[in-house]
Structures are given as C-alpha cells and as structure tokens.
C-alpha cells in the first residue's frame, strides 16, 4: 500500500496544516484526508503544488509499504 508521509515533511519544514493549505490552495479538510492516509488518489497538480511548497520530491511524501 501507498502511505502518505505528509505529516513528517510538514514537521521537517515546520509548516502547519493551515499554512500549507493556504499555500497549496486546497482545503484543510482535503489536506487532512491526505495527511491521515484516507485519500484514494492524488492529482499530479496537487502533488506538484505540495512538493513545490515543501521543497521536496514526491518520494519524500509517498512511500510504498507491504500490506500486513
């Protein structure tokens, strides 16, 4: 399964959910869905904006893990 490590990157960049939401231009609710691994899919445009604002690569946010 794909896991989203958005919270780790946000902590590294010392950025709050509200701030990232403002910068990326998506709602806090949607960003929260993404952060809590509840999202079913991520648009390239969203990923692009998040990577730009957090100054990271998609691989820093998304991680593949074997299912238990």
């Amino acid at each position: 399964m794909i896991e989203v490590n958005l919270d780790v990157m946000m902590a590294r960049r010392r950025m709050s959910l509200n701030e990232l939401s403002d910068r990326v231009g998506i709602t806090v609710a949607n960003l929260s869905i993404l952060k809590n691994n509840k999202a079913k899919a991520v648009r390239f445009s969203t990923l692009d904006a998040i990577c730009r604002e957090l100054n990271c690569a998609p691989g820093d946010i998304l991680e593949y893990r074997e299912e238990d």
Partner: protein
Amino acid sequence: MPKISKNASVILSLVCCGIGFLGLIAIAVLLPFALPKGNGGPYDGQYIGRMLPMSYLMLVPVGVADGFLVKLLLLVRKRQVFTDKAVSCLRTISWCCFLEAGLCVLSAILYFRIHLALFFVAGFLGLVLRVVKNVIEEAVALKAENDFTI
C-alpha cells in the same frame, strides 16, 4: 410527453407506495372472503384453510419490499442515492422479489397454477433489481474514489 419535476416524481412515487401499502392491508383483511368457496370438491373448507396461510405468507415480502421502497425514495429525496444505504435497500427489495417468486412456485404447485405467471414476474423483477443494485454499488465505489481524490 409531459415531464414531471424530480421532486414531484418522488412525492408521486411515495404516494403510490402508500396506496400500495393500504391496498396490501385491504387484501389482508378481505383475503378470507375473497378466496374461492365451494361445497366439497377442490375448494372445500379444509382446502381453503390450508390456502389462507400461504396467501398471507405471500403478502409478507410485498409489504417488506414496499417499506424498503419508501426508505429508498426518502434517500432519493435527501440526495443520498449513491450510498451504501440505498444499495442495501435495493438488495433487500431484490431478495423480497426472489422470495415472492419462490412462494409463487410453491403456491402454483399446491394451489393455483396461475401463480406460475407471478413467479416469472417476481423472479424477473428480482433479477432486474439485482442488476440495478450492482450498478449502483459500482457507482458508490466510483463516487467514493472521486470524493477522496485530492
């Protein structure tokens, strides 16, 4: 062809379900008087006595299906069509149709051959609803994926 507004259509369907339910109650009350009577022969008292419980049993799936139809229509009114609740309603109504078809076969074998026609109608309706249920179930999955695409 005249087109009824969406809200009016739902209300009309709800009214029809209500009328259907009242009709069902009327049939249940009048059933003992409506069944064929005869002195001896195939329609003697004992025969009617055995036919009555089966006739009442056949009304049960119709009543349950009617109730779930009302529930489904209320979900449509609340714009909650593509939800698990709606799928569950369709599943129950479909099973009610299959149950009714089974009872019709039993009734056709034991009492009225004409109930064989009802078996085909109820069975086909159950099948159609099963297909609709599967379609809605797939739509629910697609909607969930769409809703959780960030």
